[in-house]
């Protein structure tokens, strides 16, 4: 009896050692980015690559912030407007696909979902051409692209949430004489706060992190942060401290969301696949 409890204990210890080692492996890139961002450019070399700087300096952050500030501003404008518009479009679409099904609505839904899975290269050239003709190159065009190509995912997320609201609630609303629209505004919307959080987080991260459209559809003054960072960190002679500081700065908004609202982030991730 004593020996089994002992072997169980050893097993336990091995398990936690393995878990901690794996965690360290996942954290390495973050650690390296952080220590390198605090080094002076001259102090960066292979031998001390893993060591915490002896004289930490914020010079990398200063450079990065000066260079990235306009891109950050663009990204906030882009991300917030894109997210808000998408969320409302998704809510109303989801309400219809879940609670007001009509003949053929499932087919329409499936055809809509298709847009979620296409590699965006296939629409890139006409998108670029169309926005140029509409004189919408720049942030407005980018917002439009994010809203339009976000329709499938936000619609699906809201639909999945509304499927969980029992129809009896709606029926009781109907009996009380609530109309089509008041059911949505008075009954459904107040229940939708968690779904707005999930969809908002999902779209915020997607739009903040997006790069392909950003680099193809915007120009110097309207580039968002991903393009700014790729310029700061690109090329041959890279100031690694600046680019690591830049990477950390661009990651902060999404990392904050992830750390503080992680539960909802994971819900968004899973909704698309498991709950279906």
């Amino acid at each position, binding site marked *: 009896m004593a020996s089994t409890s002992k072997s169980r204990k050893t097993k336990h210890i091995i*398990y936690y050692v393995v*878990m901690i080692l794996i*965690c360290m492996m*996942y954290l*390495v*890139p973050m650690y*390296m980015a952080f220590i390198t961002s605090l080094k002076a450019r001259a102090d960066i070399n292979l031998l001390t*690559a893993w060591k915490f700087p002896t004289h930490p300096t914020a010079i990398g952050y200063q450079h990065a912030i000066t260079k990235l500030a306009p891109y950050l501003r663009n990204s906030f404008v882009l991300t917030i407007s894109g997210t808000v518009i998408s969320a409302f*479009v998704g809510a*109303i*679409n989801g309400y*219809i696909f879940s609670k*007001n099904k009509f003949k053929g*609505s*499932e087919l*329409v839904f*499936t*055809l*809509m979902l*298709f*847009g979620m*899975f*296409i*590699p965006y*290269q*296939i*629409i*890139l*050239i*006409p998108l*670029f*051409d169309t926005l140029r003709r509409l004189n919408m190159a720049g942030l407005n065009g980018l917002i439009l692209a994010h809203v*339009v*190509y976000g*329709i499938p995912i936000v*619609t699906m997320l809201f639909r999945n949430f509304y499927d969980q609201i029992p129809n009896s609630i709606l029926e009781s609303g109907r009996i009380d004489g609530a109309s089509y629209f008041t059911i949505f505004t008075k009954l459904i919307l107040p229940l939708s706060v968690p779904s707005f959080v999930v969809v908002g987080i999902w779209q915020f*991260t997607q739009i*903040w*992190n*997006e*790069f392909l459209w950003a*680099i*193809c559809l915007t120009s110097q003054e309207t580039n968002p942060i991903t393009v700014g*960072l*790729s310029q700061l*960190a*690109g090329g041959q002679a*890279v100031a690694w401290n600046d680019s*690591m500081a*830049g*990477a950390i700065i*661009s990651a902060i908004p*999404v*990392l904050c969301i*992830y750390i503080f609202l992680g539960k909802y982030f994971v819900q968004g*991730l*899973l909704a698309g*696949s*498991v709950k*279906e």
Partner: protein
Amino acid sequence: MSRKNSKETLYSVLILLPSIILVAIFVYGFIGNTIYSSMTDWKGMSATPVKNFIGLDNYKSLFTSFMNKGFRQDLVNTVFYTVFLLAGTLIVGLLLAILLDRPIKHEGIYRTIFLYPMSLSFIVSGTVWRWLLAPSGGLNAIPTWFGKNQGTFQWISSKKQIWSFNWQNVLQVLSVLVALLFVVFLISAIASQDKKGIKKNIIVIAALLVFAFLIEPLFPAGLSDEEMHGFNLATLGILFAGTWQYSGYAMALYLAGLRGLSGSIKESAKLDGANEFVYYWKIAIPNLKPITMSAVVIMAHISLKMFDLIYAMAGTDNEFTGHPSVRMYTTTFRANKLALGSAMAVILFLFAAMFIIPYMVHSHKERVQ
């Protein structure tokens, strides 16, 4: 009552209409437009574009002309990127999920650490990994901890290629690979004693092998010269970064699935004397098949989005780490060869469609039921 319902249906359709129109134009219309452009000689954007229909010439050029040799290597890279990213993320993700599928302290912290890379953009993670893999960066310093010389592997610019094959034999190679895939199906059919499945798989394998070794050699060679393509070791670093970033996602999917299996299944398996390995191998993993299916589709889709990661880690002009999406970008927006860029986009789309369409049909059927 029915008049009220038809009124509500009208509202529904009217509200959906803007979304339907936008998706119809921006998704379906644009796909059609790109497919059409790929069959023209469109060069350069202008107010009055000149597009002359030239049929499949662009595709022919991509697959056979000397000028587009690089694109063919990109296609080979795509296959490796997709296969290894799928295998890497799913296997690591499943292992992590199994490790977490027990009562442990601070489970939330572990989950957070495994999943945080997924919240970052490919540009952020690519920037950081580019530094880790740089000649003066972190990974090459690791051997010095053990008293060895620093590593000298050129992670992103290695010229080494393994598993090379001659593009002149591409159809032969492809059919042998597909045959191997069916051998896997055959083995699983034998294991589950599915007689019909065994017969079907044997027929498919035989047909593929007959094609590869008897019919294919009769075709005239598409290329006049030998042209070698294979797995470029320079892509290893990018695969590492991708696996690091997305294995947590697979973990989250699998963990949700494992938790969804009811506790009673696990209990009864234990009572039957099944140890943990048997439980996961024989009971849990087969039950997670639908999750594996979604994960394959999602990861295949992400692997086609590797444009950002490759751009950040290797730039657009690295000939070893290329991907059709990167070449599509340079061809279209730098060289202004819009028709050729469209053709590349269509090929990428067809590749993705192999994964998407079966998945969409399947989930549509499930919803309608």
